[in-house]
């Protein structure tokens, strides 16, 4: 599958404009009619198309489009993100762009420039509007022709409580009055500020060379060279605190129009600053390390897959730092950032001069794409990366060393998508990390195939069931004291056409994973009951009971009671002859339907067996609240005790205690997987009532079961 499918659903510029107009007009109020909006957006899309198709891509055009969006009031809080979504989805489908090579990367470059430019322009506009509103406020106070005069006291109150920082200075720049918000921004008290020269209080941290300094700006304002000025960005207060603020300066005139004072207004724009960071994330590069980000990496990977000869080999490697949080939390975030930057630099160095891209795709996650990579020895590659990255980095005089986990995939470019490739690299990385720090792993086709086979197998279940490939066998459940059979436990067995066999628990797990189990439930119950009834008729003995185990999903099926009832009616089996196993996990996950099912089934006379009991006391409450007939110990506990018989295991002591508690309530205790006489003896001593296992009999077809 190619990564940028050629116009699978082709789109025209007009069509895209229509979609965009509908999306954008829901995000904010736009003062134009629907038709006008579509015309505008059509024009902008055409500009973007030209920008994408140009080589190199035309970033200036993207910025101009951004400015136009702001000028046309597409400035709702979600306007730009909705617009980017529409464009990201739509541009690659335009017929006009189908001929452009590597269009994925070209589009994302243009769109991320658009996003960044938008934030910048919007900030500028907000600054202007804020300055205007404050100016309006002051003129409302000072205007002599104003009919509604505001008392001096009133103005004082407003002025001092305003959230906008305001300072008024004489024409020499010395502050004559300022409010608390202003003082807070410059990190001083109001008393401190008054009498101080403004340029001493605030200056730009990143003074652009081509703009006058704040001091110069004040002068130009006084001399009439400027009527007003604006600054934004990081302004450094004399306290050395850096604040993200807007600042605007203008002149106040007396009623005769003679300039008397400067007014400086400031507002905290941290919020807007955050917006820009948010948009920056949609850009192409990671701000910290300067590496391409995930978005860029993925579009490059798509382009590479599309452009490559189908037989060319492509390698993707994921590199993840081991215990990065230890460094971040232990030594500090600055050290962590420093480390990430040096790792970025080292990786880039390693692949310099190759057709490769190194990207940072999450906090401590890097990815490397190597195109046309046939010859390289991948174990050598992993070793090189690990060696280079484990050399300590010096932060101050502290050496920090990290190890990394590496997941490597090499595949032919044809027949795999970018998504599949990165996913394969991810699973491989996780497998490596599970082994321990400093490990690498190669994509394991086998493992992947096993996973795929499982899905395949699950897909065959419905057919197998119809073809009668699924059988019921029975395994005896015996009393521990005299070995007499209490019940027969139904065991499913799937013999496939090729002779291979899928056992009971595997089968149920598959069915449960795929959700098939609920529709199989009725069949399982009817089949097990009817086979059992037939077997009983055949044997004409005192009928043993039938035990059928439900899966977690079956236990919470709201139709379970109906299904069980129907099976009993259809087969003529008595409710008293049926034991139903319900997994404890289904109960503890707190599903109300399970509890209801258990109650109703017990009322019918069916005996409920809670299966999978651990050595703790957690489930004892259920025995009090629910009509439970028996409890079966979890197989892993049985296996653990079988490995170390005697009573020195903590688990062994605990389980004995639990057994005596359970039995004191009159509930039967059952043990699965009992395979030797010694095990049987141990459990008998521990007080259990009954057991299953090869010691008492293998699962067998119905007619020779005893």
């Amino acid at each position, binding site marked *: 599958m190619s990564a940028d499918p050629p116009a699978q659903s082709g789109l025209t510029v007009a069509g895209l404009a229509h979609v965009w107009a509908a999306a954008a007009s829901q995000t904010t*109020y*736009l003062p134009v009619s629907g038709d006008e909006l579509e015309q505008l957006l059509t024009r902008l899309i055409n500009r973007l198309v030209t920008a994408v198709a140009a080589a190199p891509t035309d970033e200036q055009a993207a910025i101009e489009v951004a400015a136009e969006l702001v000028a046309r009031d597409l400035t709702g809080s979600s306007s730009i993100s909705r617009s980017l979504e529409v464009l990201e989805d739509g541009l690659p489908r335009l017929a006009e762009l189908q001929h452009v090579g590597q269009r994925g990367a070209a589009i994302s470059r243009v769109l991320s420039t658009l996003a960044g430019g938008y934030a910048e322009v919007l900030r500028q506009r907000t600054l202007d509007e804020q300055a205007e509103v404050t100016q309006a*406020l002051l003129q409302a106070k000072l205007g002599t022709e104003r009919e509604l005069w505001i008392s001096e006291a009133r103005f004082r109150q407003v002025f001092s409580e305003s959230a906008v920082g305001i300072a008024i200075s004489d024409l020499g720049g010395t502050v004559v009055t300022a409010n608390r918000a202003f003082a807070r921004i410059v990190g001083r008290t109001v008393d401190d500020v008054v009498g101080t020269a403004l340029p001493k209080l605030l200056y730009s941290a990143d003074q652009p060379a081509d703009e006058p300094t704040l001091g110069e700006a004040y002068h130009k304002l006084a001399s009439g060279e400027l009527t007003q000025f604006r600054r934004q960005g990081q302004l450094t207060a004399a306290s050395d605190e850096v604040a993200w603020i807007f600042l605007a300066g203008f002149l106040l005139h007396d009623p005769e129009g003679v300039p008397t004072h400067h007014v400086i207004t400031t507002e905290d724009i941290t919020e807007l600053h955050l917006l820009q960071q948010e948009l920056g994330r949609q850009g192409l590069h990671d701000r910290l390390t300067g590496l391409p980000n995930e978005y860029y990496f993925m579009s490059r990977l798509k382009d590479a897959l599309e452009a490559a000869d189908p037989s060319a080999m492509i390698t993707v490697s994921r590199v993840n730092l081991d215990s990065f949080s230890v460094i971040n939390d232990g030594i500090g975030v600055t050290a962590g950032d420093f480390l990430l930057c040096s790792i970025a630099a080292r990786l880039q160095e390693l692949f310099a001069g190759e057709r490769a891209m190194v990207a940072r795709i999450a906090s401590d996650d890097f990815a490397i794409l190597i195109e046309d990579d046939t010859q390289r020895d991948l174990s050598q590659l992993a070793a090189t990366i690990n060696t280079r990255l484990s050399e300590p980095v010096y932060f101050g005089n502290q050496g920090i060393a990290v190890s990394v986990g590496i997941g490597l995939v090499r595949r032919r470019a044809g027949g795999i998508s970018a998504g599949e490739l990165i996913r394969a690299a991810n699973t491989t990385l996780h497998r490596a990390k599970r082994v321990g720090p400093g490990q690498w792993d190669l994509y394991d086709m086998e493992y992947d195939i096993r996973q795929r086979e499982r899905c395949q197998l699950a897909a065959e279940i419905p057919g197998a069931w119809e073809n009668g490939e699924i059988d019921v066998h029975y395994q005896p459940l015996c009393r521990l004291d005299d070995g007499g059979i209490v019940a027969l436990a139904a065991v499913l067995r799937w013999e496939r056409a090729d002779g291979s066999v899928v056992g009971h628990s595997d089968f149920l797990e598959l069915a449960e994973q795929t959700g098939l189990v609920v529709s199989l439930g009725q069949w399982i119950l009817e089949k097990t009951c009817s086979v059992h009834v037939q077997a009983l008729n055949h044997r004409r003995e005192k009928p043993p009971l039938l035990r059928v185990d439900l899966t977690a999903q079956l236990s919470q099926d709201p139709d379970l009671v109906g299904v069980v009832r129907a099976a009993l009616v259809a087969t003529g089996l008595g409710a008293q002859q049926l034991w139903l196993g319900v997994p404890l996990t289904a109960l503890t996950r707190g599903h109300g339907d399970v509890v209801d099912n258990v109650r109703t089934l017990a009322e019918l006379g069916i005996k409920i067996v809670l299966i999978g009991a651990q050595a703790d006391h957690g489930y004892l409450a259920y025995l009090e609240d629910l009509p439970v007939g028996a409890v079966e110990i979890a197989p892993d506990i049985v296996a653990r005790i079988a490995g170390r018989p005697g009573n020195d295991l903590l688990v062994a002591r605990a389980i004995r205690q639990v057994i005596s508690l359970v039995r004191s309530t009159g509930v039967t205790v059952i043990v699965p997987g009992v395979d030797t006489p010694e095990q049987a003896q141990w459990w008998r001593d521990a007080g259990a009532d009954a057991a299953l296992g090869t010691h008492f009999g293998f699962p067998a077809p119905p007619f020779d079961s005893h």
Partner: protein
Amino acid sequence: MPSGVDQVMPNAARVYDYWLDGAHNFAADRALADKIQQVLPGIRDAIRVHRAFLRRAVQFLVDSGIRQFLDVGSGIPTVGNVHEIAQRANPECRVVYVDKESVAVAHSELLLAGNDRAAVIQADLRDVEKILDHPQTKRLLDLDQPVGLLMLAVLHFVPDSWDPAGIVARYRDRLASGSYVTLSHATTDGSPAGLAEALRFYEQTPEPMYLRGYDEVLRFFAGFELVESGLVGCAFWRPSGPGDSCNSTEMNALAYAGVGRKP
């Protein structure tokens, strides 16, 4: 009682501007707006579709030959002002804005500096004579010719004790035949969840709201003939595109709107 420039107390015009994604607002306005939005999440959409109604109505008036407008309760200049829409449709159009709030007025003055076809007057809408006889009105509007009178989202700040229908009638009586009134008014008729609570926030501000039912709003059109679509939820008045409505019926009709012609 004069209402001063009050930056500390939130103010309806600036709250409204914030919802329209304008930046002519202060922290106190944004705080109130956010509180209201929390209990009435659709409010932004409602404001947006109301503003879209304003655009369609002004366009309709220009298309009907109206060249002079009196916008009473005009608010803070924000996205898509009456004079911008009208003068874009026909540069001959003249607009007089009226608001009682001094920041809104000062602000409008800034915006209108250099536009000799538009002006702003600071006045209370009850002072009909003062407004109509104001030098600016006299300069820009010819009351012997039809006028487009706009009273958008303003009468719901007027209590019954002021007799709002009587006020509208006083304007009507001074307007030439062929004039139009364009009026919108928030209502509780759709009773969207959260509206009652939102109104309680307004009660703590200097500008409580008085929402009215359909028949009460209809009465404001006495002596005017409602043009096609009649008095309807503002999103349903001659909609022209997807931006004119939102996906909540209640928000589409949070304000009634209509245009009436003086015979």
